[in-house]
């Protein structure tokens, strides 16, 4: 009887001690993040989830969601599920440009005014005079050309754009690394069944202590990453698998998705521009895996444009070699986005699309 009481006392004391340690870690972490010793805001930018499941597109931006709050790159999703200002009614005289693509188009880690669509809108306003311009940022983090196509079919063409700008390709590389390859990326995409409450590990991520401990251990807080929901667990790539990335099926699937997107845009009376997605050549030269992959994408983009009568926007010489244009291997800095926007608007102007 006495030993049982003693056991329970020790157990209670140990539990109390554990609780005190957890409270202490959380308290110290909150103080460390507040003092700027731990980049808590940056880590938390990966969550909470800015995307939600969609029954036919896989996932879409979550209406009204915010990301990076407290940083200079706060991202706000409007009530229509696009980043930036909500599209207004389609009135006469309006030039509506729909920008579709991935996180580069979305402007991950860029303030609203520095994103590619925002820069395009700014430049267009100078070109078209009194005509009303509306550039919709329909870029979504992690989108491959397959999601872009379905989203364009179910949402984009309902906006009745005059021009559709396609900027994608980097996210189509990873699906080509996973076998057996399927055109619809079933082998790569997780089927995100239901937007139920946050996963337990995501709830943990809300705790400063968890974030700090993972940061100290050098482990990225994966639970907050979108691909933790949307992508199947991938097998590590080997050199052979990288070679597999040059498989014909993957490249052709990308070409077909681009071509079908352009055909869809044309079917609703919109013109299309396919932008050659640049990459940071100072990190990856043209012989590197990324360099070769992006060059292959560019060839397919050119094919798609030629096949469907779309226009192709190439980047100026030396753009990829200037590291100041990139935040990493593919994402643009504010300066990079500005330069790409100029190239796009100049092309529109050259094509005579910007009548005042």
């Amino acid at each position: 009887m006495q030993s049982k009481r003693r056991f329970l006392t020790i157990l209670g004391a140990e539990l109390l001690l554990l609780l005190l340690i957890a409270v202490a870690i959380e308290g110290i972490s909150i103080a460390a993040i507040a003092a700027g010793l731990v980049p808590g805001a940056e880590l938390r930018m990966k969550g909470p989830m800015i995307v939600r499941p969609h029954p036919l597109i896989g996932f879409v931006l979550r209406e009204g969601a915010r990301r990076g709050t407290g940083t200079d790159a706060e991202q706000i999703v409007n009530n229509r599920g696009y980043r930036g200002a909500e599209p207004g009614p389609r009135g006469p005289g309006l030039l509506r440009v729909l920008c579709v693509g991935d996180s580069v188009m979305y402007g991950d880690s860029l303030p609203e005014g520095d994103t590619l669509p925002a820069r395009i809108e700014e430049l267009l306003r100078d070109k078209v005079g009194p005509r009303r311009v509306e550039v919709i940022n329909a870029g979504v983090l992690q989108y491959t050309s397959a999601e872009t196509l379905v989203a364009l079919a179910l949402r984009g063409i309902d906006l009745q754009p005059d021009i559709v700008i396609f900027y994608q390709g980097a996210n189509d590389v990873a699906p080509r690394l996973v076998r057996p390859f399927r055109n619809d990326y079933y082998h790569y995409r997780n089927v995100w069944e239901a937007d139920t409450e946050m996963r337990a590990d995501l709830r943990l991520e809300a705790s400063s202590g968890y974030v700090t401990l993972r940061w100290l251990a050098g482990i990225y807080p994966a639970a907050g990453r979108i691909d933790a929901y949307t992508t199947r667990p991938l097998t590590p790539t080997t050199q052979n698998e990288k070679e597999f990335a040059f498989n014909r099926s993957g490249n052709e699937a990308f070409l077909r998705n681009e071509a079908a997107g352009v055909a869809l845009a044309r079917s609703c009376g919109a013109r299309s521009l396919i932008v050659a997605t640049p990459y940071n050549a100072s990190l990856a030269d043209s012989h590197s895996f990324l360099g070769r992959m992006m060059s292959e994408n560019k060839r397919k983009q050119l094919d798609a444009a030629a096949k469907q009568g779309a226009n192709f926007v190439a980047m100026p010489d030396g753009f990829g070699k200037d590291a100041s244009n990139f935040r990493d291997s593919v994402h643009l800095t504010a300066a990079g986005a500005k330069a790409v926007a100029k190239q796009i608007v100049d092309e529109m102007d050259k094509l005579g699309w910007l009548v005042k």
Partner: protein
Amino acid sequence: MPLQKLQKTICIRALAAVAAACAPVACGRAPGDPDPSFFRSNSLFRVEPIPNLSAAGAHGPHDGLGLRIHGNTPDGGAPEARRVLILGGSFVYGYGAPAGESIVAKVDEILKSQPRLAVKTANGGCPGHFAATAAMRLHFILYAWKPSLIVYIPGFEDMSVYAAAGFAPDLNHVPRPFTGQALPEPGLWTAAGAAAFERDLRTLEVIARTGGARLIIAAPDASGRAAALRDPVFKVSKQRNLSLLDLPAGADAVARAVADAIRSSK
């Protein structure tokens, strides 16, 4: 004693009926969901027949693209034969019936009875599919099977989705399969629903044309449950200059009409 036996039998049957109705829900499947042994979720077109499924019976078998095999495999037959892919929902798939009794099998049988007509038909039906999912599934299988003609037969699923209560133009209201929620019962046919249905039929046509195939769209029979789809079908076929197939009532008559349309299409 016989009365007690009768009561016992009634009780057992009632319990069995309740259990049968609840079983799909208990395993995460709504009563309208297709059998998960034969179908699986797909993030871009909701649900698909599990490819390379040899099990035959009420559902299946399926080839590598998830096309239902009836008699000869879709890839069998003469290579010069004209390939026709028939798309639709559970009616086209022949859900719950052996593969040989599906509408596509009947069409195939009629076409094969015609001398000097080399046509290969494939069953691209999938329970729970409607115009938008058919269009996207078409995009991802079109280049692998390379049909020159596509026939889309809209059905009850199109009514469920485009005439649903709580309809959203981007079809966000459609429940995921195997999550315990069935496709909604059709409600009122609204202008927004009709516009989305027309949009998705146009997408189907664009996808088919981009892949070098022609599309025939079928208008459900005027007396059936999906009669409200007729006007949008007529409208889109006129707008896009598509061949239109006005379906009669009854499975055998539908098969004959589809076979006639395939035969007379160039």
